[in-house]
């Protein structure tokens, strides 16, 4: 059985393995009918499982270690990528990657959180948890894009900003706050895509834009279900309930009018077919960019202010 299989994926994988096994004997026996029946069954099973995921299962899919990350999307969607490094102040944060790339012929600046795939690369990427220099690097790239009139695409996928001693010393809060302010008045279009985990301020720190999109199996909230559980229930055991209570899926956020659009994933999740996911994302980005590039900078900024101004629910 493949590694990294989530509990609710197991029945599907078992059936798929069985079909695989049968195929080996197909040349000797005429079992194509049986295979077809099983294949139909797998499809049905997949649809019933993936259309009925709990919020916690969505969180697990968003964190699936085989999901495509920012650099994967860049390689699959764009050409002529030129990676740019450093915040020109302290260092290069490897938890955030950035650079110019071309989506077909459209020049873009792409900035995203970057996770690793194994222990070594995860340590290098700090598990996708930026330090202040990561947010400052991102801001530097946005200013560069603004100066040369190139639209910005940001990709969010982080368990949070790094809660370390040095991060505090170098002003984690200031770095995030500065980005929120500067992104709200950047003169070029910004498209934000949540490609995995959108955990709190660490995600929002590169998450202010004109269009906010979420891949189907991702989450975005003020806190992770685990931390929420530990604070409100005073135990790590209530993460499922916390995920339900936080209403943190793409469908939830669309209903809350916090995001603009959900981007469908291949059946079973983005990790099942990287290229298909990248193709879908690319066509959505091109369509969105095409619309945004028609808007004058002043209008873009005033609409952005209005967009975030409307977020929130209260009584008076």
């Amino acid at each position, binding site marked *: 059985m493949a590694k990294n299989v989530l509990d609710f994926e197991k029945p599907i994988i078992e059936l798929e393995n069985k079909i695989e096994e049968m195929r080996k004997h197909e040349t000797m026996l005429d079992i194509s009918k049986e295979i077809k029946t099983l294949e139909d069954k797998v499809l049905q099973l997949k649809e019933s499982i993936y259309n009925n995921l709990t919020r916690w299962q969505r969180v697990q899919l968003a964190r699936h270690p085989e999901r495509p990350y920012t650099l994967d999307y860049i390689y699959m969607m764009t050409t002529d990528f030129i990676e740019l490094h450093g915040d020109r102040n302290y260092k290069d944060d490897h938890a955030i990657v950035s650079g110019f790339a071309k989506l077909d012929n459209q020049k873009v600046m792409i900035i995203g959180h970057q996770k690793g795939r194994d222990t070594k690369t995860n340590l290098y990427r700090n598990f996708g948890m930026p330090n202040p220099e990561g947010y400052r690097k991102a801001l530097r790239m946005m200013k560069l894009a603004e100066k040369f009139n190139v639209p910005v695409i940001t990709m969010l996928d982080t368990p949070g900003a790094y809660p370390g001693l040095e991060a*505090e*010393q170098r002003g984690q809060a200031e770095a995030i*706050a500065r980005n929120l302010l500067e992104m709200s008045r950047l003169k070029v279009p910004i498209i934000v895509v949540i490609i995995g985990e959108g955990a709190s*301020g660490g995600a929002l720190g590169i998450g202010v834009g004109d269009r906010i999109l979420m891949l189907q199996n991702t989450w*975005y909230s*003020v806190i992770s279900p685990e931390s*929420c559980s530990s604070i409100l229930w005073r135990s790590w055991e209530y993460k499922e309930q916390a995920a339900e209570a936080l209403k*943190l899926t793409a469908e939830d956020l669309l209903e809350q009018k916090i995001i603009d659009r959900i981007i469908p994933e291949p059946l079973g999740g983005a990790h099942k077919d990287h290229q298909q996911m990248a193709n879908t994302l690319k066509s959505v980005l091109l369509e969105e960019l095409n619309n945004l590039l028609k808007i004058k900078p002043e209008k873009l900024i005033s609409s952005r202010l209005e967009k975030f101004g409307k977020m929130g629910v209260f009584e008076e």
Partner: protein
Amino acid sequence: MGWFTRKKENISKESKKSDLPDGLWQKCEDCGEIIYNKQLELNLWCCPKCNHHFRIGSKEYISFLFDEGTFKEIDKKMKSADPLEFVDTKKYSERIKSTIKKTGLNDAVKTGTGKINNKKVSFACMDFGFIGGSMGSVVGEKISRAIDVAYEEKIPMIIISQSGGARMMEGAYSLMQMAKTSARLARLADAKIPYISVLTDPTTGGVTASFAMLGDVIIAEPKALIGFAGPRVIKQTIGRDLPEGFQRSEFLLENGFIDFIVTRKQMKEKLSLLIDYLHNNHK
């Protein structure tokens, strides 16, 4: 999210601050001095012996910052609507109701306009007593509207922060208040209208990572806890105790993140002087 305490072995206990209890006198948690309430109030809730700043709320700050009778509150009635119908060990709607009853406040921030040495300002002051001063939709909206008042009337903005961070029970709505308030401050900054941020104990999480850190000038009361991640989370991450004074005002001053430390007694005069330096130079 600092208003809950979480127990964890191998880590030394936090010093716990309490809100002002009722009674005739109080004990200073720093030096143990017994102080009569009346005396404490006359001393702006600072210990006469060691100058420890007791935690106070918006009502108290308004009482000594503004020229008498000039403060006019706005959006007084705004209340949380529990958009997620959030339930943990308790319903959020119940939590809100009981906190309103207990504190006499409708949410964790009070906003309005008033005069400081005859200079009109737009003002917001948070209350830690209301669910840890956490920021949900009401706090975000009230602060945004106060910034709009500053923008429209071309008067300086002053915000006193005191918060455990974003309010979990409003999920992503809470998170978005960070972007909303910061965007309003961007517009204020473009109009060259001054914004002074005052940090008090504690200012952490999403409040620090948005408007609290965006002042043209940022000042803090002595020894206030100021940070992004709470000390407990950092301790758990690094697996050891934190150095003395870590994330306190003096630490932030040393690291270049605040302009100066202000005692409560100097606060009004310093704010007045800063307004004088920053405001109305573009005429």
